[in-house]
């Protein structure tokens, strides 16, 4: 079985292998995670006010996963995910204004108000959505990897999905083809312990999710997905492996969502203690904050500046999303088909 030399698969995270980053980089990571946190809190608030409709799956608590992953890739690498996707858009560099305006269903949103929370894309930022069907983004992400392989462009497909998707058959069909054809895909399982309200223990005969790729010869590990530096180190290793033509790689990020599955969540399937313990002891943003302060890399004033700048950015996005007009009624009929070029 092909396993990267540096680690062996284990059912529990190894002693964290952390990326070494500069103080400035650590501040960037803090800022990036805080942007997602504040964005999602604002989205939750606006949902509560009736400004956002439908489903709204917040990423609060899981910020380190996509932030760390995006710190480990190169321009041109592609990203695809499922429906808990706002964090991925922001981490890919998409404009919070356009994302928030899509949530409010306005014409200035990334999909002109026609996609909503689960369906946004940016060709410019190589973000391929935003997909609402559990498991469906896995073959799609494998197809992005296929395209990189076909073009031999040395790009990697980062394909995110949740622990819930790991019980969909198409995931294993994809693992098989990706391994068979050595496609450059890094599969990132965001294991937040619950597929909607069903815990891993109640849904998975084997709790070791990354290990389910092993029979296909796909190497993988479990990673502390609340530690952004551990995420960076793991994704760097996986991306390097995939880029060098060795094939796919699986990373199981152990993470946690603080909020409900979507907005309407009975909160009966897990204890409040569990949630508050994760928030207090493992929060990905607090961890970086503590490193910055304890390591003397930034003082409270510097962090306050960042907090205020992020807050201003979110306020601006929220205002933009509320002030932008709704789509023109003519938009109903556009973008169903592309024009045939002569």
């Amino acid at each position: 079985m092909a396993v990267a030399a540096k680690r062996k698969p284990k059912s529990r995270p190894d002693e964290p292998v952390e990326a070494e980053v500069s103080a400035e980089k650590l501040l960037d990571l803090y800022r990036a995670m805080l942007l997602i946190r504040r964005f999602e809190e604002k989205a939750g608030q606006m949902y509560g006010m009736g400004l956002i409709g439908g489903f709204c799956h917040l990423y609060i608590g899981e910020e380190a996963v996509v932030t760390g992953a995006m710190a480990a890739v190169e321009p041109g690498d592609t990203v695809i995910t499922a429906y808990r996707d706002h964090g991925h858009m922001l981490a890919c560099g998409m404009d919070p204004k356009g994302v928030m305006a899509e949530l409010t269903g306005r014409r200035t949103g990334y999909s002109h108000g026609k996609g909503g929370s689960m369906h946004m894309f940016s060709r410019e930022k190589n973000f391929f959505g935003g997909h609402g069907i559990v498991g469906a983004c896995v073959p799609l992400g494998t197809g992005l990897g296929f395209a990189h392989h076909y073009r031999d462009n040395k790009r990697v497909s980062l394909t995110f999905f949740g622990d819930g998707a790991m019980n969909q058959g198409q995931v294993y069909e994809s693992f098989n083809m990706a391994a068979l054809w050595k496609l450059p895909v890094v599969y990132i399982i965001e294991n937040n312990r619950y597929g909607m309200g069903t815990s891993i223990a109640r849904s998975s005969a084997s709790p070791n999710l990354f290990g389910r790729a092993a029979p296909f010869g796909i190497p993988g590990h479990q990673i502390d997905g609340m530690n952004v530096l551990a995420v960076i180190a793991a994704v760097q290793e996986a991306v390097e492996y995939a880029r060098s033509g060795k094939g796919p790689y699986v990373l199981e990020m152990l993470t946690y969502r603080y909020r409900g599955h979507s907005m309407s969540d009975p909160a009966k399937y897990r204890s409040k203690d569990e949630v508050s313990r994760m928030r207090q002891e493992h929060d990905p943003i607090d961890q970086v904050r503590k490193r910055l302060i304890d390591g003397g890399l930034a003082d409270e004033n510097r962090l306050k500046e960042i907090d205020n700048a992020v807050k201003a950015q979110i306020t601006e996005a929220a205002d933009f999303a509320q002030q932008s007009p709704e789509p023109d009624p003519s938009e109903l009929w556009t973008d169903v088909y592309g024009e045939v070029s002569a």
Partner: protein
Amino acid sequence: MVDILMPALSPTMTEGKLAKWHKQVGDAIKAGDVLAEIETDKATMEFEAVDEGTLSEILVPEGSEHIAVNAPIARIAGEGEPAKPAAAKPVAPQPAANPAAPPPAPKAPPQAASAPLAPRLAAESEWTGPSTTLTVRDALRDAMAEEMRRDGDVFLIGEEVAEYQGAYKVSQGLLAEFGARRVIDTPISEHAFAGLGVGAAMAGLRPIVEFMTWNFAMQAVDQLVNSAAKTRYMSGGQMSCPIVFRGPNGAAARVAAQHSQDYASWYAHVPGLKVIAPYTAADHKGLLKAAIRDPNPVIFLENEILYGASFPVPSDPDYIVPIGRARIVRPGEHVTITAYSRMVEVAERAADALAGEGISAEVIDLRTLRPLDIETIVDSVKKTNRLVSVEEGWAFAGIGAEIAAQIMEHAFDWLDAPPARVAGKDVPMPYAANLEHLALPQPDDIVAAAKAVGYR
């Protein structure tokens, strides 16, 4: 001073219970702090602060029920603001406007339930150049080979397309010419190789995905409908999915219910897909080439029984048949018969029989089912005043049902009789030869229908 409003947990929530306050007046509030717990009959949510400052006033005590969404429940004083509580002012439960209530309907131009008649395409000129006789099988192969020569982004993927040369020999010779990079055998994994094709198309490649038969595409239908058909719309036009899904559709011979089904109406139902079901070899070639060049996902329905049928095919490698145009196979005066794929042949045999009885039938080969060339059918019905639709699939919500509805919308006053549908019988396909024959539309069924609409 910022008012904290009662949040909605879902678009349908109008009121809820303020179960518990986690903060008290005078507490410092930071963004992300849990302020309160809100309950409805189906959910509980911790309600977090977005604004920062000091909790200056609680307007709704914990335990209060029936608090309307968007009613103020507390106030936060910002930094530097005095946190002085105003006079206590209990908020009575009151019905709030439903936050999810739809806004007044925008004044859009009124739309018929069906799409308006599209502007007519320019008339298709009759091919007068040199032709060769080809089977449908070879015409499909030539179409793929020519497009693969023309565009390096076109590739063929599916079960047994490469080394086996195609389960029905449609891809014969392609592996030898284009190699394993562009002619790719897959494992038996329809769901994922269809999705893989869609992902590759989103990245700009032009996949041809072969299903060994369309029956097996049932495993993949989510990727065809939810991923391929809808992405352009859901992305506001940013994304494109130029992909062709092709393979034999409908009944072959004696393969029974799970391998004998016409999926035309299933896919024709879906905006974002184009659906093609040709009959002649020339149309198979010209339409497959158009499908490969099209920027949209195309469902290309072939028929196993037709693979070996020969027809004259234009020799010009640039011969393309535009998508969305029907063809009048034989002109007639008394009744219009529409058909597609192998049923065109059955309709022609019926038309021959009808001619023997002095009934002149106009037979239309639909060729494309979405977008449907309703203009050609309407023009024909305005001449014949009678319509018989023929399809292998079931009548219920079928292609004939759609044509009948559109004819009533667009040519009601020209009809001298209700449109008639000849379709596959409303049963799973039986195996026994005599029963299979009964289940499928036969020339006699069409003759009977044509006479019925002509009151003869």
